[in-house]
């Protein structure tokens, strides 16, 4: 397995007078799923967009395999980003999206022959359920030749059955990719992640035990026995 490394450091992001991100360091390697947790408005989505390169910030240091990039998304083969809301065009069917997005026939076929997708190929993105759409979006991005995937709430609004299928999908691509994942379904994030990072007060704090999530005020104390 070829191992790639994504490193994020020195991210500063202010929103008006408020410093949203001030002490950020995180890394991710191929074969790793790093879970980003944090309360609403703590800067998880902002951080992912800064890493991807679509959000301007005062300062940042993003490197992949030791090479620094200011806008990684403009360089082929580095990153892909799954945004919170659906990002697929709604005026063309899924089959046309696949033909446009995946030039390699074998990759297109992987998606087209997927048991959960093949009956929807003639539909448009807005004709799918939330779970079906999220699954398709993820499957599509997983076929891209990128080293890392940034997933912003992949489980949001998705029924438990699809959550499980999405988890399996991520696991199956671990040999070739690394994942940064954030979601409010913290149980799913805990299950799927090898490492956890909590964003609180603008800083990234590595979490080694779920009790720390309670200590930092992310999870209520009543969930201690569940985890």
């Amino acid at each position, binding site marked *: 397995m070829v191992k790639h490394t994504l490193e994020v450091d020195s991210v500063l992001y202010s929103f008006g007078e408020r410093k949203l991100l001030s002490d950020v360091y995180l890394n991710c390697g191929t074969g790793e799923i790093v879970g980003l947790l944090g309360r609403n408005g703590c800067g998880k989505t902002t951080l992912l967009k800064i890493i*991807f390169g*679509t959000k301007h910030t005062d300062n940042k240091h993003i490197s992949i395999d030791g090479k620094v990039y200011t*806008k990684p*998304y*403009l*360089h*082929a083969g580095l990153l*892909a*980003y799954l*945004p919170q*809301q*659906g*990002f*697929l*065009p709604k*005026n*063309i069917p899924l089959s046309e999206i696949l033909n*446009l*997005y995946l*030039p390699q026939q074998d990759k297109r076929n992987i998606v087209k022959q997927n048991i959960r997708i093949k009956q929807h190929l003639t539909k448009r993105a807005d004709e799918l359920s939330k779970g079906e759409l999220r699954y398709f979006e993820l499957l599509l*991005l997983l076929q*891209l030749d990128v080293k890392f995937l940034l997933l912003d709430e992949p489980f949001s609004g998705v029924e438990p059955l699809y959550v499980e299928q999405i988890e399996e999908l991520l696991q199956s691509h671990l040999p070739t990719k690394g994942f940064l994942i954030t979601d409010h379904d913290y149980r799913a994030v805990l299950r799927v992640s090898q490492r956890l990072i909590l964003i609180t007060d603008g800083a990234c704090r590595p979490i080694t035990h779920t009790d720390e999530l309670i200590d930092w005020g992310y999870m209520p104390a009543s969930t201690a026995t569940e985890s």
Partner: protein
Amino acid sequence: MTKLKLLFLYYRSLHSFNLPFSLLVGVFCIAISENKVAGLINGFSLCLLTGGFALALYLYEQRHSQQYYFYHNQGLSRLQLAVGTLSVNLLLIFLLFLVKIYLLHG
């Protein structure tokens, strides 16, 4: 090739508004111009490059801003999409002006 196809998709999305809107402006310009062909082409071209284009960008931003990630994931920035779209329009207008010259002086 993938980027070109995606640019064309973006062009289609943006111009589902811009083209009919600019055509409408062109038709309006017929009414206020002495030369109907010149009025149509001038009005259509000017709107396609300026007001109609700006309005189409604004509406796309309001209604489909999330879809920019569809293009970003293939390495296309907003600026590249806008410049690409504008370039296609410039080519289209160049051809229209050749038609105008041919019809008026040819």
